[in-house]
C-alpha cells in the first residue's frame, strides 16, 4: 500500500520515517522508564532526601527546558529566566502569606497570577529590546533580573526581605496531614505534593516538546539558524520570537510555583538570585543546548552533584581541619562548577545529550553506507 502513495515532499518523507520508527526508538523507552521510576520513587527508596532531589530535578528539568526553548531553539539569550522563576515562586508564597490561612483556591490563583505576570513582563522586555542587537537584550534582561532581585530583598513589607517567606499549604497538602498507609508507605502531604509536582512537570515538559515540534517550533529553529532567511521566506520573525519569549517565561514562572509548592519556603537567595540563573545555564550547557532532553540530564547531574558533593567536601574538612586554604577550597564548591562550566563550553560545547546524539547519528550514517 505504501508504494502506491509515495511521500510527496521531503518533509512528508521525514515524518513518515519518524512515524514508522515511533515505537522502536530508544528515546521513547528511556522516557517511559524514567517516568515509571519517578512515579515509583517513594516506594523504591525510603529516604526523604532522595525524594527531595528527585522533585527538584523534575522542576529544574522543566525550567531548563523552557530556557532551552529560548537559547537553544530560538537563539534568544536572556538572563532574566531566574526572574520569571522567582516571580512564580513569590506569587504562590505571597498569596498564601498575605491571605493569612492557606485555602484551596490559592493554588490556581497563584498559577494564574504567575502566568499573568510572566506574560506581562516578558512582553515588555520583548518590545523594548528584542528587536535590537543580541547584546542589548542580554544587558536589558541582566539589569532587569538584578532589579527584581534587589526589589525582592528591599521591599520588606511585601516579601519579608532576605528572611524570605515560609508558608503552609492547604488541607491534604499540609505536612501535618496523614492518611494512613498504602503498600507500606505513609500517605501524607509530602507524598501528594510529590505527585502533583510529577504530574505538572511531565505535562509542562510534554507541552514544551510539542511546542518545539510544532510548525511554530520549526520557524523558531529557522530563526536561530538564519533570521534573514526566515524573514525572506515570509515569516514575521519578531512575532515568533515574542511567542517563544512569552511561552518560555510562562513555563518558567509555573516552575516557580511548583518549586514554592515543594519547598514551602521562598527567599531571594533561593529563587531570584544570579546563582539560580548560573545554575540554569550550567545545567543547560552540560545537558546540551537545543536538545530539550538534555535539560533532564543536566538538572539531574548538577542537583545530584550539589547534594552529595557538598557532603564529600564536608568530609574533607573533617579529616583535614588544619589547613585554612583547604577548608575554604572545600567550602567553595561552586568554584568547581565554574571551572567545569568553562571547560564544557570550550571543549564540549554540545553537552552530554548533544554529543550522544551526534555519535548515534554518525553510527547510523555508517550503517547506512
Amino acid at each position, binding site marked *: 500500500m505504501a508504494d502506491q502513495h509515495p511521500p510527496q515532499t521531503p518533509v512528508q518523507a521525514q515524518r513518515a520515517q519518524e512515524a514508522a520508527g515511533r515505537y522502536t526508538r530508544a528515546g521513547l523507552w528511556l522516557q517511559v522508564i524514567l517516568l515509571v521510576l519517578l512515579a515509583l520513587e517513594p516506594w523504591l527508596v525510603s529516604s526523604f532526601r532522595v525524594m527531595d532531589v528527585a522533585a527538584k530535578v523534575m522542576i529544574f528539568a522543566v525550567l531548563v527546558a523552557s530556557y532551552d526553548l529560548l537559547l537553544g531553539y530560538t537563539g534568544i*539569550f536572556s538572563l532574566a529566566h531566574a526572574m520569571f522563576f522567582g516571580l512564580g515562586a513569590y506569587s504562590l508564597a505571597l498569596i498564601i502569606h498575605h491571605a493569612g490561612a492557606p485555602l484551596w483556591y490559592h493554588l490556581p490563583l497563584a498559577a494564574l497570577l504567575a502566568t499573568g505576570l510572566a506574560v506581562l513582563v516578558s512582553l515588555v522586555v520583548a518590545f523594548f529590546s528584542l528587536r*535590537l542587537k543580541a547584546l542589548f537584550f542580554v544587558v536589558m534582561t541582566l*539589569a532587569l533580573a538584578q532589579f527584581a532581585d534587589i526589589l525582592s530583598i528591599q521591599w520588606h513589607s511585601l516579601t519579608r526581605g532576605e528572611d524570605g517567606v515560609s508558608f503552609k499549604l492547604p488541607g491534604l497538602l499540609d505536612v501535618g496531614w496523614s492518611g494512613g498507609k498504602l503498600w507500606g508507605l505513609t500517605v501524607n502531604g509530602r507524598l501528594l505534593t510529590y505527585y502533583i509536582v510529577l504530574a505538572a512537570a511531565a505535562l509542562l515538559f510534554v507541552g514544551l516538546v510539542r511546542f518545539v515540534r510544532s510548525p511554530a517550533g520549526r520557524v523558531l529553529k529557522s530563526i536561530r539558524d538564519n533570521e534573514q532567511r526566515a524573514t525572506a521566506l515570509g515569516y514575521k520573525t519578531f512575532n515568533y520570537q515574542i511567542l517563544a519569549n512569552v511561552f518560555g517565561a510562562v513555563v518558567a514562572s509555573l516552575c516557580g510555583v511548583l518549586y514554592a509548592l515543594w519547598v514551602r519556603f521562598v527567599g531571594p537567595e533561593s529563587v531570584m538570585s544570579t546563582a539560580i540563573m548560573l545554575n540554569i545555564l550550567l545545567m543547560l550547557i552540560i545537558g546540551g543546548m537545543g536538545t530539550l532532553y538534555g535539560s533532564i540530564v543536566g538538572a539531574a547531574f548538577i542537583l545530584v552533584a550539589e547534594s552529595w558533593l557538598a557532603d564529600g567536601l564536608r568530609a574533607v574538612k573533617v579529616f583535614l581541619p588544619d589547613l585554612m586554604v583547604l577548608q*575554604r577550597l572545600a567550602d*567553595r564548591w561552586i568554584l568547581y562548577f*565554574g571551572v567545569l*562550566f568553562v571547560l564544557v563550553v570550550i571543549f564540549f560545547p554540545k553537552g552530554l545529550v548533544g554529543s550522544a546524539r551526534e555519535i548515534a547519528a554518525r553510527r547510523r550514517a555508517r550503517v547506512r553506507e
Partner: protein
Amino acid sequence: MNSTAQSAAASTQSAADLKRWAGWVVGVGIWLLPLLWINLTTYLVLTVAGVTMGMLLFLTASGFTIILGLMDVINLAHGAFFAWGAYTGFTVLGALNKLGWVETGTLGQSLVSVLICLLLALAVGWVLGVLLEWLVIRRTYGSHLKQILITMGAALVMAEVIAILWGPNDEVVLTPAAFTGSLDLWDVVIEKFRLLAILVGGAVFLAMHYVLQRTKLGIIVRGGVENREMVQALGHNIRRIFTYVFAAGAALAAMGGTMWSIYTREIRPDMGESNLIFALIVVVIGGMGSVTGCFLASLMVGLAFNYVAYSVPTLALGVNIMIMAVILLLRPSGLMGRS
C-alpha cells in the same frame, strides 16, 4: 527649482539644528528637574556624589566599551577584575597601615599609599587580563554566545578564588587619613575622597582621550574599531593588540575597583557583579566603542542613581534601566555609537 531646493535644504538644516539644540536643552535641563523636590544644598551634595560615582563607573565601563568596540568581545568577567582590584587595594592598605601610613599619616603618605594601591591594582588587572585573554577569550572570537557563557563562568571562578584567598565575608577597607572627613563649602558638604576620585577619573578620561586621539597605538585601536581586516592588512599584529587592549581594560577595571572600595569602604567577593550591571548600562547608553559616549553615560548614570536613591531608594537601579530603555528606543546605537 534651484532656489526651492536650496530653501528646502536650508529648512532641513535649520530643523536639524533646532533638533540638536532641543536635544542639548533637554539633555542638560533634565538634570535640574530634581531641584523641584530636593533643596539646593542637598542637590549639590548629591550632584558631587553623582559625579564621583560617574567617574568611578567610567573607569570600569571604559575598558568594557573599548574591548567590545575593538575586539567585539562581550566580557562579563569585567566585574571580576573590578573585585580583584578592590581586594588588591584592601591588602595594600592593610599592609601599609602597619607602617602607620594609612590611618595616621601625613598628606604625602596618604597620597603615596593611594598611588601604590592604584599601581598595584593596575598591575594585577593587567596580569589577570593577559591570562584570561590567553587561556579563554582567544577561543571565543566571533561567537557572542560562547563569550557570554565563558566569561560568566570565568567571573564566577574569579569571585570564588577571591573568597578562597581572602575569605567569603565582607571586609572593611581603610581610608587614608588625609582623605577622611569632608570639606564644607557654603554648607555643601563634600567628602575629601570624592574630590580625589573625580580628579583620578577626569585624569584617566583625558589620558585615554590623548592616547586614542594622538598616539600611533590610538590610531591603530580606533582603526581596528572601524575595520579590523584593514588594520591587519596594513601589517599590524591585531592579535597582540587585542591582548594588550584586553589587559588594559582589565587594568582600568581593577583600578576602578580600588577607588570604589576606598570610596565605599567595604568589599565582598561578589561585588563585581552589581558593578558589572552599571558598567553594562553605561556602555549601552554611551554607545559601544565610544569613550566619550561612555564618559557622558557614566555621569548620567551616576547622577540619576544618586538623585533617585535619595528620593526613592528602592528604584535607584530601576531608573537607570529606564534611562537605558528610553535611550535604546530613541537611539538604538547609544549616545555616541555608530549606527
